[in-house]
């Protein structure tokens, strides 16, 4: 009850709601315009909201996150180019509908079921976060180390075409996370005499470089051509017809929540799995799947938005982010001096309430802005990349500078941008690197703490891995590492 009151106090706070609206408004454009991404926008927002109150920063970021994930569907439907990776599946049926002159209908379904998916995801977060936190209180330092390792292994396996490339990206991230003064002994590691590196690699310029600048370079290097925008004409849809997919959408939302909670899987995997389920469950769609079936849009959009709440669960309760955006949100907590984990909801309940309130309010703005923008978004989608990309580059420079007011961070952003660009070109995913950069410090200190504690026991291995939870986590890590290539081949077969 106290939690509910806490959430409502944020939901009825005018300043909070306005900040969510500002974020939602930005998210609508960022998500819809191909070449810009939600992770890029949240990375930039971390630098801008650096000096804000944490709850204000969270309100804006949640608005961007919720509406940004949805609005990728708008460009997927109108120009057959998904604005976000999680909307790839939406193109399969959305664009054929737009070509038939049913763009408005496709967008309406995307709006309503993204809204339902988001709400169900946040309800799950509200209900599951506390029980999982209670379980996590029993974790030892080795459990935390293994849990983070499991997260990195799954991210590596699910975000890359080749398992080894995903893990190499994670290993490089761990390497970068070790630069600077060691938190246990106070020794400078891998600074090579550069004073600016003694405080470590600042997460903000690394984020902006890897997700922002590298994406600009990738867009420029691939093509500057813009998509052809389909016409949108308003056609009335009855509420009864719209909600006919309601019951089955709960199943897609459950898939989204589960996949979202797995570190690294995220929206693209969730929407794909939900789409596969829809094809299996809906035997006789009005139009075949892939040719403009409304059921395909419902499955994809419900699942990818339900992922948001799901991805928040491990981030808030265990300190392990579920996807790239939650890794960035985790860094928001870090730069504001907060450490998510089992005690987080008890010690920083206000932040938990702010996240849920931000998500729920954001989902209502999704509904509102979605319908208002549906007929006008074509104008925004026709902003050429040649104009947009230089402006985003300036935002990357200013965003990385704003974090600490120093040019060294701009240089770091530039170098991480180049690294991210080459990684993308050579099919190395950037998400495991950023996850490792965020988690590296925690992994290092927990690993050494676990070894120190176990070294005083008679049997080192039993002390390290003897507990049931530890053993399960170790088996999970070993299983993921051993079957990484198989996981990918399954994924490829599904594609």
């Amino acid at each position, binding site marked *: 009850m106290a939690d509910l009151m806490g959430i409502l106090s944020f939901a009825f706070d005018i300043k909070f709601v306005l900040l969510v609206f500002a974020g939602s408004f930005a998210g609508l454009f960022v998500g819809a315009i191909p070449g810009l991404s939600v992770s890029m926008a949240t990375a930039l927002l971390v630098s801008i909201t650096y000096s804000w109150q944490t709850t204000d920063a969270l309100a804006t970021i949640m608005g961007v996150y919720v509406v940004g994930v949805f609005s990728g569907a708008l460009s997927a439907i109108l120009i057959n180019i998904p604005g976000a990776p999680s909307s790839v599946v939406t193109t399969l049926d959305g664009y054929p509908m737009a070509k038939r002159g049913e763009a408005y209908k496709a967008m309406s379904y995307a709006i309503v079921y993204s809204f339902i998916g988001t709400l169900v995801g946040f309800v799950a977060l509200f209900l599951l976060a506390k029980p999982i936190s209670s379980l996590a209180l029993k974790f030892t330092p080795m459990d935390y180390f293994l849990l983070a390792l499991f997260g990195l292994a799954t991210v590596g396996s699910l975000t890359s075409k080749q398992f080894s490339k995903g893990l190499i990206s994670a290993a490089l991230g761990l390497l970068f996370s070790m630069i600077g003064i060691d938190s246990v002994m106070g*020794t400078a590691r891998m600074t090579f005499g550069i004073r600016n590196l003694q405080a470590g690699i600042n997460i903000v310029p690394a984020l902006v470089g890897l997700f922002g600048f590298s994406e600009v370079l990738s867009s420029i290097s691939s093509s500057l051509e813009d998509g052809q925008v389909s016409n949108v004409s308003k056609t009335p849809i009855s509420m009864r017809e719209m909600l006919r997919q309601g019951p089955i959408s709960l199943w897609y939302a459950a898939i989204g929540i589960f996949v979202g909670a797995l570190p690294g899987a995220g929206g693209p995997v969730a929407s794909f799995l939900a789409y596969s389920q829809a094809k299996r469950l809906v035997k006789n769609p009005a139009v075949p799947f892939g040719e403009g079936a409304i059921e395909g849009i419902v499955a994809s959009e419900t699942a990818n938005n339900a992922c948001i709440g799901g991805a928040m669960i491990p981030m808030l309760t265990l300190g392990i982010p579920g996807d790239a955006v939650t890794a960035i949100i985790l860094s928001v907590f870090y730069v504001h001096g907060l450490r998510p984990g089992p005690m987080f909801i008890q010690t920083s309940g206000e932040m938990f309430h702010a996240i849920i309130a931000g998500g729920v309010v954001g989902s209502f703005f999704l509904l509102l802005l979605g319908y208002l923008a549906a007929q006008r978004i074509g104008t925004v989608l026709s902003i050429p990349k040649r104009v947009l990309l230089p402006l985003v580059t300036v935002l990357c420079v200013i965003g990385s500078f704003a974090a600490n007011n120093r*040019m060294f961070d*701009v240089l770091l952003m530039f170098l991480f941008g180049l690294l991210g660009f080459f990684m993308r070109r050579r099919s190395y995913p950037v998400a495991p690197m950023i996850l490792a950069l965020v988690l590296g410090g925690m992994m290092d200190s927990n690993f050494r703490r676990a070894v120190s504690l176990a070294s005083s026991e008679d049997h080192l291995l039993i002390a390290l891995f003897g507990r049931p939870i530890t053993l399960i986590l170790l088996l999970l890590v070993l299983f993921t590492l051993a079957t990484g290539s198989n996981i990918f081949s399954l994924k490829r077969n599904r594609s």
Partner: protein
Amino acid sequence: MTKQKKRSMTLYEGLVFFLLSCCLSVYSLVHHAQAEVVWKQSPYLFPLLVSFFLLPLSLSVIKQGLGECGQTKEQFQGRTTLVMICSVALYIVFMGYLGFIVSTSIFIMFTIRYLGEKRWVVSISLALLFPLVLYWLFATLLHVMLP
């Protein structure tokens, strides 16, 4: 991109990671010896662990590079990308000398025109207004002192 080229790139990547892993191991062992602490407290324990983790991965990439085949032709605007990278580097360098507003105006004007925007009104208005609005936003509202 030819088959031979692709194979050699992956192979070189693997070799770079292999060298990185070796260097990290040597770095950790040498610095640990100099630090004179037991391994369980050593700040070089985790870097050593990461180097061991990286070693089989680099070998896997090398193996993949040796056995890779198939021809892929990807669209790559190499010259445009290089010009963009150089102009951003110059923009960052000159920001310290010219200040944020002037350097940003020049950067936007140049890159927008270079990337193919033909309308002078759009180029000039963006080059002038965007830096001014950003400066006002950051300096006044967010209290960030820009160069």
